């Protein structure tokens, strides 16, 4: 290999060059492969943690500041802390959750299931679909486009007794759309009445920082609390079978554009300078929620009869 002594016309022979390149490539690939396998688990955990946090933010079980939340008797949201086994008890804002606590609460309280085109729920096992494969394959194209659509049941905060099948206190729908620059992915959590929003989150977006990227900020997301996903008619009633579905991000402020019209219940303020991102959000909700309409009707009817 010490061919660098003054060689008037030729450097190392071709074979030596090829040998060098092959060895170098092999060493590089080896280093990277070792690193990648070593870091695979932390990476998957990090991704799962991020997704769990975002889903729990949408369901108002977790906050942007890093602590859990529960509802007190008056229905207000107060800080909470982890008490083992997926349970949350009242706490303070200082009780910042750790990664394990977050993953544990997620595991206990958020159950992925499928709904079909008629609104009937079934588990992955009953539908004969491999959960991991389904989650990976359709993330980009959108679960709402599949005949069996992904939805997450939100189970209530477990109390001490080992319960029977607890009734869900809400559902989380994965939302796909297209913002100004690129695809946006988020969650929308809806009450068991099938029409009131619990909360939203956007976990993947490449919008303009300071403008469109505000959709990931708490200050804008809290506009969605208590909004309706169906547009009320002029008397303020919702007919889930015929009303337009989706939440509209208006240009400007809802108070100025819609005033006291009942339609304001399905609209939120736009972000100045980010109209197009707002339009992307509107379209996303409209397209995705339309696919779940039969399901909303079903659970609404169930709540009515109770």
């Amino acid at each position, binding site marked *: 290999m010490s061919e660098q002594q003054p060689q008037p016309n030729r450097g190392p022979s071709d074979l030596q060059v090829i040998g060098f390149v092959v060895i170098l490539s092999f060493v590089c690939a080896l280093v990277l492969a070792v690193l990648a396998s070593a870091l695979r688990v932390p*990476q998957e955990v990090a*991704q799962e943690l991020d997704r769990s946090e975002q889903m729990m933010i949408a369901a108002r079980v977790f906050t942007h500041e890093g602590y859990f939340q529960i509802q007190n008797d008056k229905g207000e949201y107060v800080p909470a802390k982890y008490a083992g086994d997926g349970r949350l008890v009242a706490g303070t804002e200082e009780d910042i959750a750790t990664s394990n606590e977050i993953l544990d609460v997620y595991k206990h309280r958020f159950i992925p299931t499928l709904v079909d085109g008629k609104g009937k729920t079934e588990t992955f096992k009953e539908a004969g679909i491999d959960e991991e494969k389904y989650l990976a394959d359709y993330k980009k194209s959108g679960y709402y486009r599949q005949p069996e659509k992904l939805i997450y049941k939100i189970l209530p905060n477990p109390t001490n007794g080992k319960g029977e099948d607890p009734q869900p206190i809400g559902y989380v729908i994965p939302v796909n759309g297209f913002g100004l620059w690129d695809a946006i992915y988020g969650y929308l959590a809806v009450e068991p009445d099938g029409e009131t929003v619990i909360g939203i989150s956007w976990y993947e977006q490449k919008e303009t*920082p*300071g403008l469109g990227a505000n959709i990931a900020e708490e200050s804008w997301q809290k506009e969605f609390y208590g909004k309706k996903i169906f547009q009320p008619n002029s008397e303020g009633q919702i007919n889930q079978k015929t009303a337009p579905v989706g939440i509209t991000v208006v240009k400007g402020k809802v108070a100025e554009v819609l005033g006291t019209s009942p339609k304001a219940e399905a609209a939120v303020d736009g972000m100045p300078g980010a109209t197009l991102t707002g339009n992307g959000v509107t379209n996303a909700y409209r397209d995705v929620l339309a696919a779940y309409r039969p399901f909303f009707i079903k659970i609404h009817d169930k709540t009515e009869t109770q």
Partner: protein
Amino acid sequence: MSKPTAVSYFKEQLWHSNQILVAILGICSALGITNRLSVAITMGLSVTFVTACSSFFVSLLRNVTPDSVRMITQLAIISVFVTIIDQFLKAYMFPLSKVMSVFVGLIITNCLVMGRAESMAKNVTPFPAFMDGLGAGAGYMIVICAVGAIREFFGFGQLLGHQIVPQSWYATTDAPFGYENFALMVSPPAAFFILGGFIWIYNIISGEDHP
């Protein structure tokens, strides 16, 4: 040993041959990613790590690298270190890696890294090469952090995510003449203007003529 010389490599890179302001290298990431100070700091640290380590290894292999594959070798070494950084960010700083996305990969073609490998690392011994790379990265980091701080402060009223400009100063519908964030700072052209300004200041201070 060559300790004084090695340290002088470091100092040289910090000011006299500052990669951004003098050699005008490494601009792409300086513009694309200096919206927020936290991102700028992460980028600066990543580039410093990559430059220092790759310069070290390029220098280590300088006597056995055939001339015809010199550039590919440098690129391969640099990509290994960039992949290392990328994998670490994805594992331990996931939200930040989402923001930085492809810009981490672009460190590979960051002219700064290649420039150091090509002009310095293949000519000197490993330790000075390492210090040179470290200095280049540090000089780069100082400049982009300055740009990032200015952009975040004027564009968001924050630094490192903490609100600096008091919320009460902001204009609302009741007080329409209050403070408004300088929205231009958030968009890319502002980075051009700020860098142009820095070059201007640098030229005035160092009194040199850089055509």
